[in-house]
């Protein structure tokens, strides 16, 4: 049912009803902004990127062939725009180092993820990793959809998600140890 209303909005915008676009922004704006905000530190930068995403969506609506899901298409634009804006504006993020992966001092029972730890740990991931993990766990996009959005293979995404979960576990454990010690 949601997809039907998406398509109807798209068709209305294509027919020249610009106001129908507000429905699209109202529906997806906050999710796109939330994902971008997790990648970009500054709120204004994140809003600028979110605006850029929706302007691109509007300009490219003629190219949307209505064969795929609108959300998948929109998130693909959001993904590409965020990554390219990060490169263009050199909005820096701190990637987690691979050697962290050998740190195994985590007690499975202790991994009780608190939001502030997770929020901080997310900042240690690369933008495309944050994109994958937020789309999958927060917006509940299927791995197949994420594969279409990111142009990565299904198996590659599964591997990446596994690595991301490991990185997050290590980072959360480090944050806890820092707090205790």
């Amino acid at each position, binding site marked *: 049912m949601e997809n039907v209303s998406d398509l109807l909005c798209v068709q*209305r915008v294509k027919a020249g009803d610009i106001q129908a676009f507000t429905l699209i922004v109202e529906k997806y*704006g*906050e999710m796109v902004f939330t994902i971008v905000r997790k990648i970009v530190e500054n709120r204004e930068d994140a809003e600028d990127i*979110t*605006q850029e995403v929706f302007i691109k969506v*509007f300009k490219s609506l003629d190219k949307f062939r209505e064969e795929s899901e609108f959300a998948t298409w929109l998130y693909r634009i959001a993904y590409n725009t965020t990554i390219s804006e990060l490169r263009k504006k050199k909005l820096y993020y701190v990637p987690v180092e691979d050697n962290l992966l*050998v740190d195994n001092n985590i007690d499975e029972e202790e991994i009780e*993820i608190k939001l502030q730890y997770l929020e901080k740990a997310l900042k240690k991931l690369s933008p495309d990793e944050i994109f994958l993990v*937020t789309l999958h766990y927060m917006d509940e996009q299927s791995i197949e959809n994420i594969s279409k959005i990111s142009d990565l293979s299904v198996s590659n995404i599964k591997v990446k998600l596994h690595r991301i*979960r490991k990185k997050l576990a290590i980072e959360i454990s480090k944050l806890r140890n820092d707090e205790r010690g």
Partner: protein
Amino acid sequence: MKEDRTISDNQLRKAFKEFPLENLSPGFMEDLMSKIEKETVSQRRTKKLIAFLQIIAGIASIILLPVLAVYLCNRFIPGFSFSFSNLKINFDINSVLIGLAILLLLIIDSLHKRHEYKRQFKNE
């Protein structure tokens, strides 16, 4: 052998569920829509300009292409000689009228469809 520790799929799913969505600034929508309206105006202008240029190019090609073709034939094909001043065209007025009528019907039909399409969306 070191044990491979990680967060489980479900744990992460549950944790992400608790994350609230970030709220956009109150002025976000107005700002975005004004940018989009500007974009629409500029897109319309560009489309009009392209359409105008296409018409000019079409007319120019209708006139220039036969002239160019005749010039090239006269220039490069031995024994070929053609002059537009000797050309006499006989219009069949009936054919021209039928052609214009068909064109008019097509224009009326497309305008009608456009009107219906807009009315349908307004009703929805």
